[in-house]
């Protein structure tokens, strides 16, 4: 049930912000500070999410095979690999390192 509540809230909230952008009169969100905050917010959230989903197990910090996978993804990104290759590299390296018993 909790999962369905979360899904409903996310679906509703995400749809409403999309719609708000199309309906709100231009100018309301055009203040430079608002624009810059809107650009930085995803940076902060994505960085925190990347770190947490790589280095945590429950509420503990851990270093495991996912770190190697993320490093592989970073290398792929530096080499300008396509999106799917980046994700594929992370998955393959994580699986490989885990198979080695790490």
């Amino acid at each position, binding site marked *: 049930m909790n999962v369905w509540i979360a899904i409903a809230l996310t679906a509703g909230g995400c749809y409403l912000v999309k*719609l708000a952008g199309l*309906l709100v009169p231009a100018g309301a969100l055009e203040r430079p500070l608002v624009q810059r905050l*809107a*650009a930085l917010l995803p940076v902060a959230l994505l960085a925190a999410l990347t770190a947490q989903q790589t280095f945590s197990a429950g509420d503990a910090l851990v270093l495991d095979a996912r770190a190697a996978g993320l490093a592989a993804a970073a290398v792929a990104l530096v080499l300008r690999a396509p999106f799917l290759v980046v994700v594929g590299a992370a998955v393959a390296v994580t699986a490989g390192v885990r198979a080695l018993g790490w």
Partner: protein
Amino acid sequence: MAEQTAPPVIRDGTPAKPDAAVVRDALGVGVAVGLSGFAFGVTSAGSGLSILQTCVLSLLVFTGASQFALVGALAAGGNPFTAAAGAFFLGTRNAFYGLRLSQLLALPKAVRPFAAHWVIDETTAVALAQPSRRAARIGFTATGLTLYVLWNLTTFLGALGAEAIGDTAAWGLDAAGPAVFLALLAPMLKSATERATAGIAVLLGLGLLPVLPAGVPVLAAALAAPAVLWAQGRRTAPTGREKDSR
């Protein structure tokens, strides 16, 4: 209601771009990103959501980063409200895309509630890259349609696959989520401002993880954004209107 005129990017003298070329652009983006629905389907089902829940997310939320954030937060044991809040804040950027698109596409009022569902990173990127309103409309629609169909189809197949595989972690599939986040983040790290924000957010997100309830540390990490802007504002003093960097 003020009539919105065309934004400056559209000029009368711009040579027309063939519709087929616009559709080709759109299909390229739509197919590449649409296929990554596999990663979402696998991650979501591997996080313990049912196939139905996974598919409903792709059908109704349809903004990838928020979907990954939600299933990650739920898997980590976050309550539905903090989990949804993280996903919601990630989705707020779409409001700013909508603002740009409403001027560019000049959609009739009746169409907006339907078009809104497709206002995401990729459709905005393709539409903004077009030289005329006609091309922007075609680009938006073709990207949206391709991406919506493929993203939902691959979500379903990915969720089915995860159920068949069983232990998704043994296949390294738990690394797909963070890799997707990193891939979305990397192109945003353009200047010292973005890198400082990301660095502080990582420290907050990891540092607070052991002490705050699941889901809350990510929201706390979001405070890195206003904190960096505030620190920057103090250093540079009021300079009036700044140039829009986006």
